Protein backbone atom coordinates (compact mmCIF):
# COMPACT_ATOMS: atom_id res chain seq x y z
CA UNK A 1 0.00 0.00 0.00
CA UNK A 2 1.27 3.45 -0.90
CA UNK A 3 2.23 5.68 2.00
CA UNK A 4 0.82 9.17 1.46
CA UNK A 5 1.62 12.37 3.28
CA UNK A 6 -0.26 15.51 2.26
CA UNK A 7 -0.64 19.00 3.71
CA UNK A 8 -3.14 21.16 1.83
CA UNK A 9 -2.83 24.89 1.35
CA UNK A 10 -5.50 27.02 3.02
CA UNK A 11 -8.84 26.69 1.28
CA UNK A 12 -8.28 23.17 -0.06
CA UNK A 13 -9.42 19.81 1.27
CA UNK A 14 -6.49 17.43 1.71
CA UNK A 15 -8.80 14.41 1.71
CA UNK A 16 -10.55 15.11 -1.59
CA UNK A 17 -8.30 17.39 -3.63
CA UNK A 18 -5.97 15.72 -6.11
CA UNK A 19 -4.12 18.71 -7.60
CA UNK A 20 -0.53 18.78 -6.27
CA UNK A 21 -0.49 22.55 -6.77
CA UNK A 22 -2.99 22.84 -3.94
CA UNK A 23 -0.64 21.32 -1.38
CA UNK A 24 2.35 22.66 0.53
CA UNK A 25 3.45 19.03 0.84
CA UNK A 26 2.28 16.20 -1.38
CA UNK A 27 4.21 12.94 -1.32
CA UNK A 28 2.89 9.56 -2.36
CA UNK A 29 6.06 7.45 -2.88
CA UNK A 30 5.56 7.38 -6.65
CA UNK A 31 5.72 10.86 -8.13
CA UNK A 32 8.74 13.00 -7.31
CA UNK A 33 7.34 16.52 -7.38
CA UNK A 34 10.83 17.95 -7.36
CA UNK A 35 11.01 18.08 -3.61
CA UNK A 36 14.61 19.12 -3.90
CA UNK A 37 16.63 18.51 -0.79
CA UNK A 38 19.18 21.12 0.12
CA UNK A 39 22.72 19.96 0.89
CA UNK A 40 24.59 23.25 1.23
CA UNK A 41 24.44 26.89 0.34
CA UNK A 42 26.69 29.89 0.70
CA UNK A 43 27.63 33.22 -0.78
CA UNK A 44 31.20 33.64 -1.99
CA UNK A 45 33.18 36.28 -3.82
CA UNK A 46 34.56 34.91 -7.08
CA UNK A 47 37.17 36.32 -9.44
CA UNK A 48 38.15 33.75 -12.05
CA UNK A 49 37.34 30.12 -11.29
CA UNK A 50 36.39 28.78 -7.89
CA UNK A 51 35.73 25.13 -7.10
CA UNK A 52 33.19 24.26 -4.43
CA UNK A 53 33.72 20.64 -3.40
CA UNK A 54 30.28 19.18 -2.79
CA UNK A 55 31.45 15.73 -1.63
CA UNK A 56 28.48 13.84 -3.08
CA UNK A 57 30.23 11.67 -5.66
CA UNK A 58 27.57 12.33 -8.30
CA UNK A 59 26.29 15.34 -10.23
CA UNK A 60 23.85 17.18 -8.00
CA UNK A 61 21.18 19.68 -8.94
CA UNK A 62 22.46 23.21 -8.30
CA UNK A 63 21.15 26.75 -8.43
CA UNK A 64 23.58 29.64 -8.79
CA UNK A 65 22.99 33.38 -8.80
CA UNK A 66 25.40 36.25 -9.33
CA UNK A 67 25.15 39.74 -7.89
CA UNK A 68 25.68 41.41 -11.27
CA UNK A 69 25.09 44.86 -9.79
CA UNK A 70 24.75 45.76 -6.14
CA UNK A 71 21.61 44.15 -4.75
CA UNK A 72 20.55 42.56 -8.06
CA UNK A 73 20.84 38.77 -8.22
CA UNK A 74 20.74 37.16 -11.64
CA UNK A 75 20.10 33.48 -12.20
CA UNK A 76 23.03 31.78 -13.94
CA UNK A 77 23.13 28.88 -16.35
CA UNK A 78 25.92 27.25 -18.30
CA UNK A 79 28.23 29.28 -20.52
CA UNK A 80 26.52 32.62 -20.77
CA UNK A 81 24.79 34.02 -23.82
CA UNK A 82 23.79 36.96 -21.67
CA UNK A 83 27.23 38.65 -21.69
CA UNK A 84 27.60 38.57 -17.92
CA UNK A 85 30.81 36.54 -18.25
CA UNK A 86 29.54 34.42 -15.35
CA UNK A 87 28.35 30.84 -15.38
CA UNK A 88 28.72 27.55 -13.55
CA UNK A 89 29.48 23.92 -14.21
CA UNK A 90 29.04 20.90 -12.00
CA UNK A 91 30.57 17.43 -12.01
CA UNK A 92 30.92 14.49 -9.62
CA UNK A 93 33.33 16.42 -7.43
CA UNK A 94 32.85 20.14 -7.73
CA UNK A 95 30.48 22.95 -8.40
CA UNK A 96 32.67 25.23 -10.50
CA UNK A 97 31.87 28.93 -10.37
CA UNK A 98 33.16 31.00 -13.28
CA UNK A 99 33.65 34.74 -13.42
CA UNK A 100 35.53 36.01 -16.46
CA UNK A 101 34.82 39.72 -15.96
CA UNK A 102 38.13 40.42 -14.25
CA UNK A 103 36.43 41.85 -11.18
CA UNK A 104 35.21 40.00 -8.09
CA UNK A 105 31.47 39.23 -8.04
CA UNK A 106 29.38 37.68 -5.29
CA UNK A 107 27.92 34.29 -6.16
CA UNK A 108 25.11 32.66 -4.20
CA UNK A 109 25.06 28.92 -4.70
CA UNK A 110 22.71 26.15 -3.59
CA UNK A 111 23.68 22.49 -3.89
CA UNK A 112 20.98 19.87 -3.53
CA UNK A 113 21.20 16.19 -2.75
CA UNK A 114 19.13 15.42 -5.84
CA UNK A 115 21.20 13.38 -8.31
CA UNK A 116 20.56 14.63 -11.85
CA UNK A 117 22.46 11.92 -13.70
Amino acid at each position, binding site marked *: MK*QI*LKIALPGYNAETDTDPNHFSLYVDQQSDYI*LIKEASKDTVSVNGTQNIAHGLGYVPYCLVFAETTSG*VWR*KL*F*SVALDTTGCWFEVDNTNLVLKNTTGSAINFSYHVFYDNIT
Partner: protein
Amino acid sequence: MQVVKVAKIGNSTDSLDPNDYIFHSSYNTFKIVLEGTKSVTLLASTTNQTFTQAHGFDTFIPLISAFAKRDAINQVFLPNGVDIETYTAGAGFDGDIKFNYTATDSNNMIFNFDNNKGTTIGVTIKYYLLERV
Protein backbone atom coordinates in the same frame (compact mmCIF):
# COMPACT_ATOMS: atom_id res chain seq x y z
CA MET B 1 15.80 12.88 16.74
CA GLN B 2 12.28 12.61 15.37
CA VAL B 3 12.01 12.56 11.57
CA VAL B 4 9.24 12.24 9.03
CA LYS B 5 10.31 10.49 5.85
CA VAL B 6 8.65 8.83 2.87
CA ALA B 7 10.87 6.54 0.80
CA LYS B 8 10.40 5.99 -2.89
CA ILE B 9 8.78 2.64 -3.60
CA GLY B 10 11.44 -0.07 -3.54
CA ASN B 11 13.70 1.79 -1.12
CA SER B 12 14.09 1.28 2.59
CA THR B 13 13.32 3.97 5.11
CA ASP B 14 16.64 2.98 6.69
CA SER B 15 18.51 4.24 3.62
CA LEU B 16 21.11 6.93 4.22
CA ASP B 17 20.86 8.22 0.63
CA PRO B 18 18.64 11.34 0.37
CA ASN B 19 17.90 10.36 -3.25
CA ASP B 20 15.96 7.34 -2.00
CA TYR B 21 13.32 9.57 -0.48
CA ILE B 22 10.45 11.56 -1.87
CA PHE B 23 10.41 13.47 1.39
CA HIS B 24 12.74 13.56 4.39
CA SER B 25 12.23 16.09 7.15
CA SER B 26 15.97 16.29 7.85
CA TYR B 27 16.54 18.07 4.55
CA ASN B 28 15.24 21.46 3.65
CA THR B 29 12.86 21.35 0.71
CA PHE B 30 12.65 24.50 -1.33
CA LYS B 31 9.41 26.38 -0.94
CA ILE B 32 7.66 28.30 -3.67
CA VAL B 33 6.79 31.58 -2.00
CA LEU B 34 5.07 33.09 -5.04
CA GLU B 35 4.19 32.03 -8.55
CA GLY B 36 2.37 33.75 -11.34
CA THR B 37 2.41 34.99 -14.90
CA LYS B 38 3.27 38.30 -16.48
CA SER B 39 2.36 39.30 -20.02
CA VAL B 40 4.65 41.67 -21.87
CA THR B 41 4.87 43.07 -25.38
CA LEU B 42 8.33 43.21 -26.91
CA LEU B 43 8.99 46.23 -29.08
CA ALA B 44 9.95 45.46 -32.67
CA SER B 45 13.63 45.30 -33.60
CA THR B 46 14.78 46.23 -30.10
CA THR B 47 17.31 44.55 -27.87
CA ASN B 48 17.82 44.81 -24.12
CA GLN B 49 14.17 45.30 -23.17
CA THR B 50 13.67 45.11 -19.42
CA PHE B 51 10.38 44.43 -17.62
CA THR B 52 9.89 44.49 -13.88
CA GLN B 53 7.24 43.47 -11.43
CA ALA B 54 7.17 44.03 -7.68
CA HIS B 55 7.50 40.82 -5.68
CA GLY B 56 6.27 42.25 -2.37
CA PHE B 57 8.78 40.63 -0.07
CA ASP B 58 10.20 43.28 2.23
CA THR B 59 12.53 41.21 4.35
CA PHE B 60 14.49 39.15 1.83
CA ILE B 61 15.47 38.83 -1.82
CA PRO B 62 13.86 35.65 -3.20
CA LEU B 63 15.37 33.27 -5.72
CA ILE B 64 13.70 33.32 -9.11
CA SER B 65 13.12 30.81 -11.85
CA ALA B 66 11.20 31.76 -14.99
CA PHE B 67 10.06 30.49 -18.35
CA ALA B 68 8.76 32.41 -21.37
CA LYS B 69 6.30 31.54 -24.11
CA ARG B 70 5.43 33.56 -27.15
CA ASP B 71 1.74 34.11 -27.64
CA ALA B 72 0.21 31.61 -30.08
CA ILE B 73 3.31 29.41 -29.96
CA ASN B 74 3.31 26.50 -27.58
CA GLN B 75 6.98 25.98 -26.82
CA VAL B 76 8.59 27.63 -23.83
CA PHE B 77 12.12 28.91 -23.57
CA LEU B 78 14.43 29.65 -20.71
CA PRO B 79 16.57 32.63 -19.75
CA ASN B 80 19.96 32.60 -21.45
CA GLY B 81 18.21 31.07 -24.44
CA VAL B 82 16.32 31.80 -27.63
CA ASP B 83 12.93 30.83 -28.94
CA ILE B 84 13.88 28.36 -31.66
CA GLU B 85 11.62 28.86 -34.66
CA THR B 86 13.35 26.82 -37.29
CA TYR B 87 16.09 24.25 -37.31
CA THR B 88 17.99 23.01 -40.30
CA ALA B 89 20.69 20.38 -40.14
CA GLY B 90 23.94 22.06 -40.93
CA ALA B 91 22.55 25.56 -40.70
CA GLY B 92 21.57 25.18 -37.06
CA PHE B 93 18.71 27.00 -35.41
CA ASP B 94 17.15 30.37 -35.90
CA GLY B 95 15.58 32.31 -33.10
CA ASP B 96 14.89 36.02 -33.12
CA ILE B 97 13.44 36.24 -29.63
CA LYS B 98 15.95 35.91 -26.84
CA PHE B 99 15.21 35.70 -23.11
CA ASN B 100 18.44 37.21 -21.88
CA TYR B 101 18.08 36.87 -18.15
CA THR B 102 15.91 36.93 -15.08
CA ALA B 103 16.93 38.45 -11.78
CA THR B 104 15.60 39.79 -8.51
CA ASP B 105 16.46 42.71 -6.26
CA SER B 106 15.02 43.87 -2.97
CA ASN B 107 11.82 45.07 -4.65
CA ASN B 108 11.36 43.54 -8.07
CA MET B 109 11.50 40.61 -10.39
CA ILE B 110 13.43 41.55 -13.53
CA PHE B 111 13.08 40.03 -17.02
CA ASN B 112 15.16 41.03 -20.04
CA PHE B 113 14.54 40.21 -23.71
CA ASP B 114 15.79 40.92 -27.21
CA ASN B 115 13.37 41.06 -30.13
CA ASN B 116 15.11 40.98 -33.47
CA LYS B 117 11.89 40.66 -35.41
CA GLY B 118 10.39 43.61 -37.22
CA THR B 119 7.10 43.26 -35.40
CA THR B 120 5.98 43.48 -31.80
CA ILE B 121 5.83 40.15 -30.02
CA GLY B 122 3.62 39.15 -27.11
CA VAL B 123 5.26 36.99 -24.49
CA THR B 124 3.90 35.42 -21.33
CA ILE B 125 6.36 34.81 -18.52
CA LYS B 126 5.73 32.15 -15.92
CA TYR B 127 7.72 32.88 -12.77
CA TYR B 128 8.41 31.09 -9.54
CA LEU B 129 9.90 32.80 -6.53
CA LEU B 130 11.62 30.47 -4.13
CA GLU B 131 13.47 31.04 -0.90
CA ARG B 132 15.99 33.77 -0.19
CA VAL B 133 19.10 34.22 -2.28
